[in-house]
């Protein structure tokens, strides 16, 4: 039994024991610690697998048909490690965060470790049956967690419904795709599928890929299958949002890479162009929605769609380059995508935990009602600031490195693939750039409006700092963010092992192999810090008066400004909303009421802006109405008579038997 197997066994064992403990007596401290330990064991297992210690395990008796088969290769190891890392931070955080009546409920407490164990097992599955079982377990456990706070209002239940329906439709899609695949292979183990994938006809392979893309893509929150994400992520408790947004969505990417790249062995260029296009669409649309959003957690959820879109741009580019036969570039693009997965997991955990902290302290996620949290919640503010820097693709942030690699891959890919690449690459670069720019605006809004300035409501001015374990959970995520931002070379070998090719080398400086390009985030940061120190020193030496006089804000002399005069998140996003009017199509509503005495004197102006998801409205509404119509029609068949229902069963059995008899 090698290290990775030990780690996996420990993770599963600790997780299940924790769940059992929760069944016996629910104590948040124990559950949180158990979840964190599960995560730690998973990190260990994943790291061991990345270092080359893969293992395989087959337990034929556990599941019917082909049994449970587990194996951990570097690709799976990376995702296991990322999931484990997120679980460590959220587990510690949950110790005090989950200490509320709603979250102390036994079912919710059990679901947390089960969710983590299921997520750890998905990338380790080595046959289709295991994968699907773990996938479904993950979906169910997360569903329980999403609706944990259902007493808060009907919107939680609605979010849960959306999530349940979409995740199961996605499951169906994956199921169909993999079943078609398995039908062309001797059994359902990945080894057999890998062998069969080489000889699959293009049509069948295409069907399998598209079905897998739809299923896994919906889990990753890819447009147009993203509708559940901005609903479920804000309504779930924050530590669960972190687990879902930073760990679970990654598994959609994992599934796509596993099926498309590994099992099907590449495939046609159009597959990857499709992935690239969907990725670009998701990235731009996701961040555009986030830029307009004034709900802190919804904004973070929409930014998850954006980041998964960026990852898919990388995956799509990698597949495209591989189909052109340029494997170094493919490795570079896939490395960028996987590095972004890791970075996104780190900063999204941090951001969701910090948002949870704000929710815990103020009871509000509405940016328009927050603000002024800096003096009362300094640690949370610093944590969110760090996360926002990491998410906005600016140096020295975490996402900057991966987006730099992604752009390098896209730029060097231009000459690689003829006209297709010549058209796809500039568009992809433009999409990445627009995404990066909008992400900067979004996170400046989230941080600047939500945390700086002055409080816009009583709840915000009476906020308090979170308890220690919550801060510690954020601290873990923050440290990982900083390390990833400053020393990406440290994790690069692992990512490249998972990507299956070496394209970037270097210790402090990242150097692209076989393409010119180098970047050193550490040197850049050191340079920046040095420059700040130099400038501060020179200013200190030069200025005549060092003491700062405290003065009132410049209010044009007209008396103190109230918090209502501040810019809010809605007003901050207004210019962008106007610019992208044609894309987002907001519903605006301005009500002007006049004084009764005179039509010329305005008494009040009311401005409302709703930002309905346009894709949702255009795509889902018709489907839903068709389904409703079908349901209405179906009512005829269900008059309530038990005999009739039993009769349906009887007819069905007879029908199947007759069909068998005829076709035989």
């Amino acid at each position: 039994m090698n290290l990775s197997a030990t780690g996996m066994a420990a993770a599963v064992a600790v997780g299940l024991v924790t769940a059992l403990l929760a069944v016996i007596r629910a104590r948040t401290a124990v559950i949180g610690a158990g979840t964190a330990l599960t995560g730690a064991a998973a990190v260990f297992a994943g790291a061991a697998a990345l270092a080359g210690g893969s293992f395989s395990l087959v337990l034929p008796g556990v599941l019917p048909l082909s049994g449970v088969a587990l194996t951990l290769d570097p690709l799976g190891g990376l995702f296991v490690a990322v999931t484990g890392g997120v679980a460590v931070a959220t587990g510690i955080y949950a110790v005090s965060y989950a200490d509320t009546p709603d979250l102390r409920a036994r079912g919710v407490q059990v679901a947390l470790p089960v969710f983590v164990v299921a997520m750890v097992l998905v990338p380790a599955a080595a046959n289709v049956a295991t994968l699907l079982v773990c996938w479904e377990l993950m979906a169910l456990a997360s569903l329980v967690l999403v609706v944990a706070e259902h007493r808060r209002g009907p919107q939680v239940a609605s979010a849960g419904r959306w999530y349940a329906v979409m995740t199961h439709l996605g499951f169906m899609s994956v199921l169909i795709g993999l079943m078609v695949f398995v039908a062309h292979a001797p059994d359902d183990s990945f080894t057999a599928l890998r062998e069969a994938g080489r000889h699959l006809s293009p049509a069948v392979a295409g069907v399998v890929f598209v079905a897998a893309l739809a299923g896994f893509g919906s889990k990753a929150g890819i447009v147009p299958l993203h509708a559940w994400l901005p609903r479920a992520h804000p309504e779930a408790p924050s530590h669960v949002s972190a687990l879902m947004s930073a760990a679970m969505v990654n598994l959609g990417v994992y599934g796509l890479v596993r099926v498309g790249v590994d099992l099907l062995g590449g495939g046609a260029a159009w597959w990857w162009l499709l992935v690239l296009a969907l990725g670009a669409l998701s990235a731009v649309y996701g961040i555009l929605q986030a830029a307009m959003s004034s709900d802190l957690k919804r904004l973070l959820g929409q930014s998850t769609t954006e980041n998964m879109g960026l990852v898919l741009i990388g995956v799509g580019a990698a597949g495209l380059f591989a189909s052109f036969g340029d494997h170094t570039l493919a490795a570079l693009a896939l490395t960028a995508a996987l590095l972004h997965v890791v970075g996104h997991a780190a900063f999204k955990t941090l951001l969701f935990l910090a948002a949870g902290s704000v929710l815990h302290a103020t009871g509000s996620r509405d940016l328009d009602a927050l603000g002024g949290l800096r003096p009362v919640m300094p640690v949370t503010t610093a944590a969110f600031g760090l996360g926002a820097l990491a998410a906005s693709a600016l140096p020295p942030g975490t996402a900057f490195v991966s987006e730099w690699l992604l752009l390098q891959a896209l730029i060097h890919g231009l000459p690689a693939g003829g006209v297709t690449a010549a058209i796809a690459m500039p568009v992809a670069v433009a999409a990445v750039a627009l995404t990066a720019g909008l992400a900067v605006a979004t996170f400046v809004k989230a941080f600047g409006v939500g945390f700086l300035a002055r409080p816009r409501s009583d709840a915000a001015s009476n906020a308090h700092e979170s308890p220690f374990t919550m801060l510690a959970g954020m601290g873990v995520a923050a440290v990982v963010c900083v390390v990833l931002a400053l020393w990406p070379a440290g994790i690069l070998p692992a990512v490249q092992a998972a990507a299956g090719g070496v394209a970037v080398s270097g210790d402090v400086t990242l150097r692209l192999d076989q393409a010119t390009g180098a970047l050193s985030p550490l040197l850049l940061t050191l340079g920046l810090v040095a420059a700040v120190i130099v400038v501060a020193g020179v200013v200190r030496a030069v200025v005549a008066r060092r003491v700062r006089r405290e003065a009132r804000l410049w209010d044009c002399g007209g008396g103190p400004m109230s918090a209502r005069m501040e810019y809010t998140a809605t007003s901050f996003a207004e210019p962008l909303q106007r610019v992208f009017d044609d894309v987002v199509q907001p519903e605006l509503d301005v009500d002007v009421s006049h004084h009764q005495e005179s039509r010329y004197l305005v008494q009040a102006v009311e401005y409302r802006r709703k930002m309905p998801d346009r894709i949702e409205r255009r795509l889902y509404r018709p489907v839903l109405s068709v389904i409703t119509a079908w349901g209405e029609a179906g009512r005829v068949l269900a008059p309530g008579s038990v005999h009739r229902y039993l009769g349906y069963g009887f007819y069905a059995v007879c029908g199947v038997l007759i069909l068998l008899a005829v076709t035989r």
Partner: protein
Amino acid sequence: MLSLWRKILRTGRVAEPPPPLPEGDRPEGAAVLGGSVQIRHVDAGSCNGCEIEIGSAFGPVHDGERYGARLVASPRHADALLVTGVVTRNMAEPLRRTFDAVPAPKLVVAVGDCARNCGVFAGAYGVAGAVRDVVPVDVEIPGCPPRPEAIVEGLRKLTGR
């Protein structure tokens, strides 16, 4: 565009040659500014006659900017306040606040007769007083309204150029 270019060429320089540096003592604290004075204009209750003249003092003909004076948008950026008009009751507190918002060292220039001694508005019920009664004044520019040359001369006392 071409016509504008031709007009520029035809017009040439319209700024008048600078008159000699005015005699007289410079206000205390003007020396430290070293030839650069940012000015925030405050209308404390003026009839807008002085404003027109200030506009023309910074126009092409008199070109107040060539002596290092510049109008700015915020009192935080300013070194001097250019106050016009009598100080009305409504503007007394805002004027004090504006003065407070200027970082030290700071100067106040009272432009026009109203600002100096309430002018024709002296004793009116809405008047809180002259500028001197509200904030300390360093330079006074007489006239109703003062000629642009006088305003430029007053500003040159501050810039020393």
